[in-house]
C-alpha cells in the first residue's frame, strides 16, 4: 500500500507534504517525494489535497494489488473517485458528501 507521485504533473507546491499524517513526504528539487513507500498508511489524505492530480494510490503486491491506481477529483461537494486499471480502463465512483439521503 502506498502512493505514487507523477513527477511530470507535480508542481512541488508542498500541500501533500503538509498534510501527510506520517510526515512522510518531502519536497526536493521542486517535486514531492515519499521518503519510504513502505511507511505509507494508505489514508489518501495526500491525493485529496493535490490540486493537479499528481498523487495516486495503489495496493502493494503483497496484499494482492494488481496495478490499478486510485485518484480523487473534487468539484464542490462531489468527490469523483477514479480507479485506473492497468489496461487503461477507468472506473468512476461519485460520492456526494453533502447528500444526507441514505445512499
Amino acid at each position: 500500500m502506498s502512493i505514487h507521485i507523477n513527477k511530470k504533473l507535480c508542481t512541488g507546491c508542498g500541500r501533500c507534504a503538509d498534510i501527510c499524517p506520517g510526515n512522510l513526504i518531502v519536497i526536493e528539487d521542486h517535486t514531492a517525494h515519499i521518503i519510504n513507500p513502505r511507511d505509507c498508511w494508505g489514508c489518501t489524505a495526500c491525493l485529496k489535497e493535490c490540486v493537479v492530480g499528481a498523487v495516486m494510490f495503489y495496493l502493494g503486491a503483497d496484499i494482492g494489488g494488481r496495478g490499478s491506481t486510485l485518484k480523487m477529483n473534487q468539484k464542490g461537494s462531489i468527490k469523483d473517485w477514479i480507479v485506473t486499471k492497468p489496461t487503461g480502463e477507468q472506473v468512476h465512483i461519485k460520492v456526494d458528501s453533502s447528500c444526507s439521503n441514505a445512499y
Partner: protein
Amino acid sequence: MKLTVKHIYTDILIAGGGTAGCYAAYKLADSRKSITIIEKANIRRSGCLAAGVNALNAYITKGRTPDFYVDYVEKDSHGIARGDLLLTMAERLNYCAHELETLGVVIQKNKQGNYVERGPRNIKINGENIKPILADAITSLHNVTIYNHVNIIDFIVQEHRIIGAVAISTQNAIIYIIHSGAVLCATGGTAGLYRPNQPGFSRHKMWYPPFNTGAGLAAGMRHGAEITTLEMRFIALRCKGTIAPTGTIAQGVGAKQINSNDEEYEKKYGYTTSQRLYGVVTEDRMGNGPSYLQTKGINKKLELDLEKAYLNMAPSQTLKWVEEGGPSTKNVEIKGSEPYVVGGHAGAGFWVSTKRETTINGLFAAGDVAGGCPQKYVTGAMAEGYIAAENIHVYLASSSKAAVIDEQTIAAYIKQEQNFLEPSDQLFSAENIEEGMQSVMDEYAGGITTAYRYNMASLVVADKKIQQLTALAQNLKAANMHELLSIHEILDRLLICRFLIAHLQNRKETRWRCFSENTDYPEIDETFNKYVNSYMKDGKIYIKLRPIVTREQNYEHTY
C-alpha cells in the same frame, strides 16, 4: 545539527490534535484562556480519522438510554470497564453527534428525516471530511494556537503536578519548551508494537495509524502516572489485506461470518467483540479457514453503497473490490489484525478520575489514550474531550499558578536531544530495533504467530528481550529531525511494551479470548473482577489491583 530553543507560554496545552483534542479545544475556546495544540502532523488529517469514518458507532438511538449503552459495554468487556466513565460519556454522545452535524458533518437521514441507524448503537454519516471540519472549527478561534508538525516528547512534572511539556519540530531543528497551567493528553492509542499482518512492503497497512506511537501515554508513564487495563489489547477483525473495518459490511448488509465450508459459526463462540475474533482464529486453527463475511449475491445497489461507504473511511477496500470484483461477486475474507493498545475500542490507557484527570495533577486525558472506557469511538472521544475541558476550567480556577520550569530541566532536555543528533557510525537504526520489538512481541507476548496466546514463561522471555532492545535504543543517533522523531517513537513503544507485558503477567486468567489469552490460566477467574493497574517508580513497574468502579460512583483519586 544544532537545535534552536523556543518557548511557548499557554494556559492549556492540548497534546495531540485528533478528534478528542480538536473538540476539546473547541469547547475550551469560550473561555479567556490561551489554548495551544501541539500536533505531530497536521490537524486537518491527523489521528485515526485521517481517512474519515462512515458511522458514529456510539450513539443513543431512538427509544434507548445511556444506561443501555453502558450495559452493552460492560457485558462486552466482561465487567472490566469503568461504569462512571461509561455513563458520563454515554450521556453526552448525542450532544456531540448533533454538534458535529452543526459543524458540517453530514449525518444520513431517512425519508422521515430521522438519522439512519446502522445498528442499535450507531448511525451512518458521510464522514470522509470529519477532520477538516473539526480543524476548520478551531483554526479561526483567536485564543487557539495550533502548532502542526511538532511532536511532544515528554511532560514536565514537578511535585506530582504537570507544569509543561517538551516537543520537537518534525521538520526544523527546533526544540520547544511549553509552559502550561494544565495539559490535556489526547495523543491516541498505540500501534506498531506487534509484527503486523503484512510485515513487508505493506507493513503500515494496519487498522490503527502507524503514526500513533503512544507519545503521551509513554510520557505519563515516565512520570509515574497510573495506567489501567493495558492487557485488554484490541485486535481488530478486519478485511484481509486492506485491514479495512468489517462492521460496515456485517451491520450494513447483515453479512454473516462463515468458514470455508460455508458454515455459519458465530453462535458456537458468542457475539462479544473478542468472541467474534476468537471464532475466526479457532476456525482457522481447526483447518476450516479462511473465514469470510457472506456478501456474495447482494444486489448491485448494496454493493455500490458499500463501495461508497468505504471511500469515506478505508478507500483501499473499494480499490481492492474494483480490481478483484465487488462484494456481490465474492465473499469478503476476514482476518484478525495484530494487537493494539487503544482506549477507544478496548480499556487500555491512563487511569483517570470521573473528571478525566490522570493521577498527575493537572494532566487530563481524553480519547484513545484514556483508559477504562471501551467502545467510546468518535463521539465518546469527543464527549471525553468535552468533560475534560469543563474540568480543566475548574482545575485552573482552583489551583495556584504553575511553577516555573527551571533552567536545569530545560538544559537536560536540550542535552539529551543534541546527544541523539551527534554524528556517529552506528550499527542499528530505529527501524531495525522496531522490527526486533515487533518480532519479540509477536512471538512471546501473544501476536499473530501464536494465535494471540502466551504463557507466563513466554512473557518472561518477552520482558527480557524488550529490556535488551531498550538498552540498544538509548544509543541510537539521528541525522535529521525525521530520524530524531523515529528514535522517540521507538523509545515510547518499547516503554509501552514493558508495561503491557507487566499487565499481561498480572491478569492471571483468560477473561477475553485473543485479547488477553494466557494458556497457563485458560479460564475466567472471578478473583480478577478487578482492574489491573500499573505505575513506574525509579525505573521499576509496580502493579496495583483496584476494585470495580460502578456507574453510580463518582471516582476521585486518593493519594
